[in-house]
């Protein structure tokens, strides 16, 4: 089985977000970057399935060279090789389009990624890639087993979950508890250095959306403290002052 795992390169979850260049660019200075937490789940399950089925796993990233440490980490966790499409992934359509070029029909049996990136939170790349390749996509997938050419998966639906069987190939957006995050071991880190990382230029595409500017939310006012002994009065304040009850 041939598996493709798509990863994002995103600011660490604790990063303070600020902008530069007149609020048109993210200020990357001093921000540690990580593999998107959801992509990390996808990668972990991908590695397990690769080991179970004796298949191969390619990791794919659409982005610039500053992502290479995260790509090497994915190789250290267990991917066999990597592809980076050398472009700033400014919108979901563009990113999905580049992924679809690499994952042309017949190339991979299973395409895994996170349910959403934690920078843009759109959660639409798996659906876009699925449609571009003419195959089914599901998200968020919380359990995944492969038997022959059929996937059995459990995914979250509104207010519950469902279990379904679907034929491969598939595109899946993953989330916990599909697998536990994997930490690379020493041997993995050593072998990752020599695993192939292929850098490809993007395929041209007309621009459908253009980012204009970024803004930060207006800061909250002070928190009104209520003494524990008068906790009950909070309910009245919520009704009469905050008007949320």
């Amino acid at each position, binding site marked *: 089985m041939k598996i493709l795992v798509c990863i994002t390169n995103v600011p660490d979850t604790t990063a303070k977000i600020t902008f530069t260049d007149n609020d048109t660019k993210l200020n990357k200075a001093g921000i540690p970057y990580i593999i998107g937490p959801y992509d990390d789940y996808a990668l972990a399950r991908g590695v397990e399935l690769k080991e179970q089925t004796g298949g191969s796993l390619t990791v794919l990233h659409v982005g610039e060279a500053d992502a290479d440490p995260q790509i090497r980490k994915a190789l250290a966790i267990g991917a066999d090789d990597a592809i980076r499409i050398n472009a700033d992934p400014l*919108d979901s359509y563009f990113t999905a389009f580049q992924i679809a070029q690499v994952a042309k029909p017949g190339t991979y049996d299973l395409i895994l990624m996170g349910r959403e990136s934690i920078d843009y*939170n759109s959660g639409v790349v*798996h659906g876009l890639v699925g449609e571009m390749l003419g195959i089914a996509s599901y998200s968020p997938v919380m359990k995944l087993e492969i038997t022959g050419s059929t996937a059995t998966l459990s995914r979250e639906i509104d207010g*519950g979950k469902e279990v379904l069987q679907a034929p491969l190939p598939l595109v899946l957006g993953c989330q916990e508890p599909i697998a536990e995050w994997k930490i690379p071991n020493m041997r993995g880190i050593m072998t990752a250095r020599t695993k192939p990382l292929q850098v490809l230029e993007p395929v041209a595409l007309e621009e459908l959306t253009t980012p204009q500017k*970024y*803004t930060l*939310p207006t800061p909250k006012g002070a928190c009104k403290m209520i003494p524990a002994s008068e906790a009950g*009065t909070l309910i009245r304040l919520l009704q009469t002052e*905050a008007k949320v009850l």
Partner: protein
Amino acid sequence: MSVLIYVELDNGSIKKTSLEAVAFGSKVAEKIGEKAVVLAIGHAASAELEKAGNYGASKVLHAADAKLTHENAMAYADVLVQAASQESSKVIILAKSGLGDALAARAAAKLKAGIVSGVTALPEIGDSFQVTRSIFTGKAFATTEIKSDIKILVVRKNAIEIDDSPVSTVQAEITAFTPPLRDEDFQASVSKVEKASSELSLTEAEIIVSGGRGMKGPENWQPLIDLAKALGAATGCSKPVSDLDWRPHHEHIGQTGIKVAPNLYIACGISGAIQHLAGVNGSKCIVVINKDPEAPFFKAADYGIIGDVFEILPKLTEAAKSLK
């Protein structure tokens, strides 16, 4: 030409977030001088679908083929695109949810449309079409110009205020929509569906009472559930709580869980780590109960009580019960 709004049905009723999408789409239609058309897929009574008129839609297309009863993003996207083509829709609006995003994505790929998900306010339409959306899980906003001929917007909860019982301004005409369906969209077989039917869904809830590790163990949840019941609220939790299996996974709120935007969020024994805050910063009003005055959550709160949750929760429940 038109603005097309997809409404999500839950047991035959239009979801609240989808009614917001109808109101949102109708406003966009007004701005560009077009009519607002609604598409509903699945089973629903006409009386329910007429509600869309109260929020500004002039027409409702209802695709009720039995094959479409079960949620299926592939088939639904195909229906959506056929509706958009019939109605010459230039803007397509959906409410943000797993299904909404999947449908929007597949439709965007079919139509080569620019797609923006997580929209928080009505678009600015002039020489260009600009939308603002939430990014970095609520830590910032981005304004984006959509340049494509057809534009797809996936709208966050509370992007527009709606009236619970609006006066009907438009009489929506309801028409059966029966486009051809493609076999290849029905290859999956669903073997099990588990719905926590008695529980309120977190993404739709107006009030959420949420517990963290400060609740000390699953056996201590009753006082929190009692308050939730008294307020008609849904229950949520922090990541460690669901990791420890104290509460089910679908209650996990935060950057790596569900993002919520209720009117009122009550956090009980949650420290307020940045990853948790990221999932709740769309809330209108935040109440924090924590015994540690230094808990970071107080900085993000509107109201705070410093004290032991187990002493405070029953007092709140009592006060909430005497409200009515």
